[in-house]
């Protein structure tokens, strides 16, 4: 039973990471009905932004006070990339057939990966991520459970981000503007809402969370590489669909469910089809089953607010 709770914790940690990225897919989809496949790369670039901040300003320091600066650095880089990407690549295509922005998204994804691989010094292979004291280092023992400090950081980040996002969308003017645009773009424009600005804000919001996720991933796995956005992005997209794309709480729930299923599959499925290499198979099998019985996803519904 101890092992069950241990793996539940591992799954929650993994799931929190998926959820942080998945929110970015879902927010953008809710506003412009675009699946931004380059979002995984925004996450990857956030991690490199944090690493660059550390390398340029704090190299050698691993004290805890460095962490906020790294997070800010990560967010700055990922938001810049996401907003520029929206302005340059997606806005001109807003009224184009839907396949055009989708292909563009894949193109940008490859472009960003290769840009980091070729131009970030040393990024041709995996790079070590600074080990910040207090959030890495020896695990804590809570009774039978082993709790990694970075896991607490990841889960805490998800809780805080979700709360902040809920407040932003439901309680601020800009957030309500997002709700309005997601319901009816044209009417919202008639009511005096600047739709272009709202779209840019949606991209920036997703990128903020992705940047934080990038730092969390770096702290947790100890290293980052230019390709890490691909699989993470695909998993997060799966989480968003699983939870009901367009629904923010759905993305969070979808991410957590996916993470927990993966962890449990490693622990409890024995024999040839068990173990770590098969965890993705079980995760995607779950996605298929959910979509067969609930095509709109776990929390998705036609009438739910899609912001």
């Amino acid at each position, binding site marked *: 039973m*101890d*092992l069950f709770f*241990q*793996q539940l914790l*591992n*799954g929650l*940690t*993994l799931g929190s990471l998926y959820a942080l990225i998945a929110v970015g897919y879902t927010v953008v989809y809710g506003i412009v*009905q675009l*699946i931004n*496949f380059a979002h995984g790369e925004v996450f990857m670039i956030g991690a490199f932004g944090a690493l660059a901040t550390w390398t340029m300003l704090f190299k050698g320091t691993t004290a805890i006070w460095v962490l906020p600066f790294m997070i800010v650095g990560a967010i700055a880089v990922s938001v810049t990339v996401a907003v520029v990407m929206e302005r340059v690549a997606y806005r001109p295509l807003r009224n184009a057939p*839907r*396949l055009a922005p*989708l*292909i563009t998204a*894949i193109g940008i*994804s*490859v472009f960003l*990966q290769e840009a980091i691989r070729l131009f970030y010094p040393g990024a*041709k*292979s*995996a790079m*070590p991520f600074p*080990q910040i004291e207090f959030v*890495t*280092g*020896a*695990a804590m*023992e809570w009774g039978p459970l*082993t709790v*990694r*400090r*970075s*896991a607490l950081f990841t889960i805490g980040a998800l809780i805080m981000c979700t709360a902040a996002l809920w407040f932003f969308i439901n309680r601020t003017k800009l957030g309500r503007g997002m709700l309005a645009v997601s319901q009816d773009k044209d009417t919202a424009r008639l009511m005096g809402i600047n739709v272009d600005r709202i779209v840019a804000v949606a991209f920036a919001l997703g990128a903020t969370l992705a940047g934080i996720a990038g730092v969390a*991933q770096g702290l*947790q*796995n*100890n*290293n980052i*590489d230019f390709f*890490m956005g*691909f*699989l993470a992005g*695909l998993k997060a*997209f799966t989480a968003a*669909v699983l939870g009901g*794309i*367009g629904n923010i709480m759905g993305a969070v729930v979808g991410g957590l469910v996916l993470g927990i299923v*993966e*962890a449990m599959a*490693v*622990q409890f499925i024995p024999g040839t089809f068990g*173990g*770590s*290499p098969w*965890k*993705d198979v079980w995760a995607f099998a779950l996605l298929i089953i959910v979509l067969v019985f609930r*095509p709109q996803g776990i929390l998705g519904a036609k009438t739910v607010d899609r912001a």
Partner: protein
Amino acid sequence: MQQRSMIRLGVPLAVAALALSACGSRTDSTTTSTAGSGTKTVKIGVIAPLSGNLSALGLGIKNSVDLAVKQANESNAVAGWKFEVIAVDDEAKADVGKNAATKISSDDAVIGVVGTLNSSVAQQTQPVLDAAKIAQVSPANTNPTLTQGADAAAKKRPYANYFRTCTTDAVQGPFAAQFLLGQGIKNVATIHDKKTYGQGLVDAFTAEFKKGGGTIVSAETIGENDKDFSTVISKIKPNAPGAIYYGGEYPQAGPLSQQMKSQGLNVPLMGGDGIFDPEYIKLAGATATGDLATSVGAPTESTDAGKKFLDQYKAAGYPEPAAAYGGYAYDAAKAIIEGAKTSLKDAKDVKSARAATLAAIGKVSFDGVTGKVAFDEFGDTTSKILTVYKVDGGKWAPSKTDTFK
């Protein structure tokens, strides 16, 4: 409805994008021109990962071959012939490696190839190069089946063109098992990455470890692209192993070691030559101290010949270090050059001399920088010296060198 069709389109497109990104290989051709006039050109190919996660090892191989070729040209090793290096990136991927081998075998001036790094890639290059009778001498493939066939009970050499200067997992795994038993560690958990190399290493380790009275408390596998190992570690931890034996390479092993220790599993991780690289320590961080790796041969810097090689390598000014396989690659290139001395002497062109070269390489015997270079009837090196290295103070320090019995 529109939303769903969007998703239906999106997923295959994403998969297609992945497939496309795996295509294409980069060529990197180094010309070394020192030797005299009116000479004919003979080329030595290099197939190794020159980009990606394993490029630190691959570039060391390429540079070391380049060094051997330069020296051969300077000393005019084969009168009337000038050696050149043609290096092709295999990205550590079997299919890319096969394309690289096809590309090299279409060049009539190629007499032999040094490579590959990965056993799984070699499985693809062997048949291509064998059809063209081009010798392949690997500095790093350690999977026993490459020389002895799939059936360990009835050994049969699959390809007569294939040789290697390093010893195999059939020796490396058991050597590690004996070492751990000698340290008094009786309970070990194994993890491998399901690649040819990793699985071979763990299988050989397990057999010997059980024979010596040890117990494998859990046997796990991980995926080739995994980054997060917390679930696997949680699964192993309650079985209280005294060490983890890992079959695989440093891009996974480094983070695995770090995550193990940050989850409170404070036992050494031991692996084969695939984790014996400075990158491993970089990725594993400060908690890597005490981790172990076996590697073939004696430490390059521990012998006079090895020291001389490293000095020459340094003097030649290559930007990347020789890494774990530099010495073996240098010896592999020299074995091809030695073979060529016999076969090219009276040959008109390279292509007609290829068969004779294979026979000549099988008979070479000289003192290389990693020990005696000679091949047995399977194409394996006759040297069975191995060393256990231990991470100490941020470096791999030799802990025990011995001949495997």
